[in-house]
């Protein structure tokens, strides 16, 4: 432990530096893609305001939005202001993008953390039972259910849940409101495929761990099975479980775009869909960068935690 701590720190600093480089490259790619994208935001903006578009008005609007300046000038300015936390103003309504993103992010965070919590709470016991009672009836049932759950696209789950619970049974509201009742279906739509994937991952991780020689050693010495599983096997797998949960954050980000659109939950996913439809480029660019930063940050943090929990992981990385 003493020797691994500085190694861990070095790794973390190196990863953080890499993260910044990756983000800069990414910002360039996103910007280039926006630049080359079809559709004219100036025209879209004018028509959405009900203005009859003439050549002069269009040109003036493009000038005003700064769409006419050279590519690298625009990229440089954009990157510079982002570094100061300024994501520019929305093409749609001139509101600052940073404020819009922050408001959406808060709601998305509520929904995503609820889903992650549900997923872990369901998947941990099921995965453990499945691994410990391998090839038993419970394991078979859990494997079938998690296989099916893992194959379901979340938009489908959301539509089906909505149909059965809101329309057929009339138990829950169709549009997600702030309270727990309204959040239940969107959270479940995200959690069902995620929990299923977790169960599969936890099961195979634990089965692998149970085959380690130290487990045989402990059993041979007459250590109680429950003790072996809870104090040794599970503890040793904790690092991998943390990594697994961190990677799932990426899945949640993609999924929340779909689910928030279906349930009209005012999160960052719904915001980006609205912005895509309005060709509101500053918001889309901000979304990609924020999501990228959070995802990479969470994974960096998870790697550090996993490294502390299980120093063996450090030896397998790179």
């Amino acid at each position: 432990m003493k020797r691994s701590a500085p190694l861990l720190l070095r790794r973390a600093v190196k990863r953080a530096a890499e993260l910044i480089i990756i983000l800069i490259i990414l910002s360039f790619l996103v910007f280039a893609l926006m630049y080359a994208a079809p559709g004219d935001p100036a025209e879209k903006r004018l028509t959405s305001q009900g203005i009859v578009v003439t050549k002069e008005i269009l040109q003036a609007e493009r000038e005003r939005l700064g769409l006419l300046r050279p590519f690298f000038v625009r990229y440089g300015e954009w990157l510079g202001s982002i570094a100061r936390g300024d994501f520019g103003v929305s093409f749609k309504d001139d509101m600052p993008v940073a404020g819009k993103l922050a408001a959406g992010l808060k709601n998305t965070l509520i929904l995503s953390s609820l889903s992650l919590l549900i997923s872990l709470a369901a998947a941990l016991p099921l995965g453990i039972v499945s691994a410990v009672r391998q090839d038993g009836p419970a394991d078979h049932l859990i494997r079938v259910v998690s296989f099916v759950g893992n194959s379901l696209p979340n938009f489908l789950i959301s539509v089906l849940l909505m149909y059965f619970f809101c329309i057929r049974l009339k138990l829950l509201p169709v549009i997600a409101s702030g309270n727990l009742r309204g959040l239940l279906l969107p959270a479940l739509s995200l959690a069902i495929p995620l929990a299923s994937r977790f169960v599969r991952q936890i099961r195979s991780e634990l089965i692998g761990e149970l085959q380690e020689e130290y487990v045989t050693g402990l059993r041979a010495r007459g250590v109680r099975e429950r003790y072996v599983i809870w104090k040794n096997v599970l503890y040793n797998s904790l690092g991998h479980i943390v990594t697994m949960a961190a990677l799932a954050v990426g899945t949640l980000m993609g999924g929340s775009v779909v689910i928030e659109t279906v349930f009209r939950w005012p999160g960052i996913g719904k915001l980006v869909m609205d912005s895509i439809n309005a060709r509101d480029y500053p918001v889309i660019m901000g979304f990609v960068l924020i999501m990228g930063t959070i995802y990479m940050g969470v994974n960096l943090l998870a790697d550090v935690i996993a490294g502390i929990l299980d120093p063996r992981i450090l030896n397998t990385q790179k």
Partner: protein
Amino acid sequence: MKIKRSVSDQRKKQRYRIIAASAAAVILIAVALLAPMLSPNDPYRTNSAIIRHAPCAAYPFGTDNLGRCVLSRVLMGARTTIAVTFFLVAVSFVIGTAIGLLCGYYGGRIDDLLMRVADIMLAFPQMVIAIAVAGILGGGIAGAMTALGITMWTGFARLSRSHARTLRGMPYIQAALLSGKSGPYIMLHHILPNVLEPLLTNALTQIGTTMIGISGLSFLGLGIVPPQAEWGSMISESRAYIQIAPWAVLFPALATILTILVFNYLGDAVMEYRMAERHT
């Protein structure tokens, strides 16, 4: 103590699973190919007289908001989904493998650069990239395929690269080099055949994921756009009147679930078979 099932019995069972899953997949592909012949009605003909008609003899799955036959559209949708998925996986396979082989075999600066690009792609949630790219490109089949393909090639590239790197040092490759074979020849004739099996397994497991991605993007209006029949966009279109005509949502949903289940099961079965092979 539980008596362990004998290894050969287990292998036989695994083989049966693969055969059963393959048979189901072949049936689905056949349905997709024969869709125009199997459809009882024209999937694109609208008919204002029979809007949102419940399932009946002439329209076994009912009709949608424009009076189109849902069964015919589900069948044609199989064609769209399966064709787009296979095409996309195949293209990612070829491009990724080519990049991986070149990087692994030659190494050097190109290897560093391309693997860095792959790292960047993997450092990022796939669906977020896909939604942003498809959104910026403005929807459509080509946009959705680009959006998903941008990250998919990396899997094939990494796999073939790592194999090419280990195989490069093998004596038989040295022998081929000494007998005057060129780099591309060696890659195609001596390395590729040895990498093909893991690559094909990877391709198989990508099919289900790709279907989920394509239908998800279409559901958001960023993939295949109406009137072209595709399950995701059909569900999205019919969602608004699910209360009146649930069949227009439920049948495409069932088709999607069934298809993804079959291909995922096939992928799982093959993976398990190969894993067991490595252990014995």
